[in-house]
């Protein structure tokens, strides 16, 4: 099409014009600079296509285990894995928006939520959630807290350690006369989800006022800390503090744990053995593997157990990353170092308990 005012160029004239244009631009510095940048970009993209790189994010509970596993995995399989310990809630956000290839979460999603988000949920392992305290003179596993005491402390109804409700179960324990500082998570946390699920089962008052949640309207006057490391810092730096953490982290960081009552009412110490006992009475699961393992009705069973899940995109997921992600999650499930982190593998029996 020729517009008014535009000179007419014949087919021969057009070729000459294009050649002149190329010849003049080819010898400019800008042309060669652009060519160099383009070649470098091509080379880099070829390199990244050769070595697989997986990005994950989520639960701070399993961050140490993932950190230890990914270097072994990279050495064995040549797949580099990065993991941002940003909390389960943020992990769900990132995998739902395709910002990461997988998320690790201990906030279980229901079938409806998974369908809406187009995600698959893969159970990986179990870990115990424990109550930790900073009380001078009180040893690890020495203090006992009844269901009523632990829920009233976190609800802000018991404010001093020598409260009669606390002392009733701690005859002979040198409990100091200190005010209680409750530390809870400020981020959207799977550990909060499991712990408040336990509190809801332990106390009707808690269930009615606060319920269970990855984030809550906690009573005023409490300390809010981000991530498991934030809880560790807040509890260890305040005498009289109480918080909740994943058991492996509590052990690693040398924080004193508390005995809690099983669903049968007997006091139990946190240990791999008491975690395994809790699994013997777990309810059957549906296809999503959604389950909350709190207050197991088995004597000697630990009352707060979290299930760690892997979340991956359903159909439409990039095939180049779908298989390596699945393999990495399989590696996490089967790694022999899992027990060092006080995790219990998700057993075949539990996976076979499907209702559907």
């Amino acid at each position, binding site marked *: 099409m020729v517009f008014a005012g535009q000179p007419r160029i014949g087919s021969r004239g057009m070729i000459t014009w294009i050649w002149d244009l190329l010849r003049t631009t080819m010898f400019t510095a800008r042309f060669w600079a652009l060519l160099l940048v383009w070649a470098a970009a091509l080379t880099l993209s070829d390199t990244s296509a050769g070595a697989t790189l997986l990005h994950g994010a989520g639960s701070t509970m399993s961050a140490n285990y993932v950190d230890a596993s990914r270097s072994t995995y990279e050495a064995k399989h040549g797949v580099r894995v990065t993991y941002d310990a940003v909390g389960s809630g943020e992990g769900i956000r990132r995998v739902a928006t395709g910002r990461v290839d997988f998320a690790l979460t201990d906030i279980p999603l*229901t079938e*409806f939520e998974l369908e809406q988000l187009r995600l698959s949920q893969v159970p990986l392992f179990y870990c115990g959630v424990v109550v930790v305290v900073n009380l001078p003179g009180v040893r690890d596993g020495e203090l006992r807290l009844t269901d009523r005491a632990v829920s009233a402390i976190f609800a802000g109804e018991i404010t001093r350690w020598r409260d009669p409700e606390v002392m009733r179960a701690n005859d002979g324990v040198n409990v100091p006369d200190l005010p209680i500082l409750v530390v809870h998570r400020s981020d959207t946390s799977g550990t909060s989800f499991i712990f408040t699920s336990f509190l809801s089962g332990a106390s009707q008052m808690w269930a009615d006022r606060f*319920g269970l*949640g990855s984030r809550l309207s906690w009573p005023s006057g409490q300390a809010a800390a981000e991530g498991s490391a934030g809880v560790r810092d807040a509890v260890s730096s305040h005498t009289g503090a109480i918080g909740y953490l994943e058991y492996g982290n509590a052990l690693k960081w040398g924080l004193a744990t508390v005995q809690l009552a099983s669903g049968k009412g007997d006091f139990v110490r946190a240990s791999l053995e008491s975690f395994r006992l809790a699994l013997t009475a777990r309810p059957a699961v549906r296809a999503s593997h959604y389950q909350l393992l709190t207050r197991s009705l088995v004597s000697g069973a630990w009352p707060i157990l979290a299930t760690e899940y892997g979340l991956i995109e359903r159909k439409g997921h990039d095939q180049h990353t779908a298989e390596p992600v699945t393999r990495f999650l399989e590696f996490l499930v089967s790694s022999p170092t899992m027990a060092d982190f006080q995790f219990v593998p998700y057993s075949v029996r539990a996976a076979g308990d499907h209702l559907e």
Partner: protein
Amino acid sequence: MSRARLIPLARVYGARITSVVLALLPSLSLAAGSPSSAPRIKSVHELIVEGERPEISACLYSAQLAMGKSHEFERLRWPATISDESVVQEYRLADDWVRVTKFEASALTPGAGPFSRQRWVGVAVECQQVNEKAPLVTVRLKLEKATN
């Protein structure tokens, strides 16, 4: 200024004022309590991306859908603190798993006639999710506190 110059000026500014009023009309009518268009429903995905608690997102989504089927209410809006303030409970009833989510919000009532005014009223929303399926929603008018 002569009358001859004032008349075209008045015409120009008059047209501009009219266009501004027309542009503001939807917002003005919304402020008076009458929606100008159908509300956009936020998906579970959007709600989670916006930072709502994952475990309440299904209920928030279903509650918006329920407004479309309701004769009593047209639209739902909730406070920015909804994720902190909603209460979630879970229990087992025989072989069924049940999750109950409760929160307080405001709902827009439909106008009864062409001259009746719509208004936002306080409501209590309850979702019941059985065996991980889509939540069933109940919306009730919140009882106003009696004042003397």
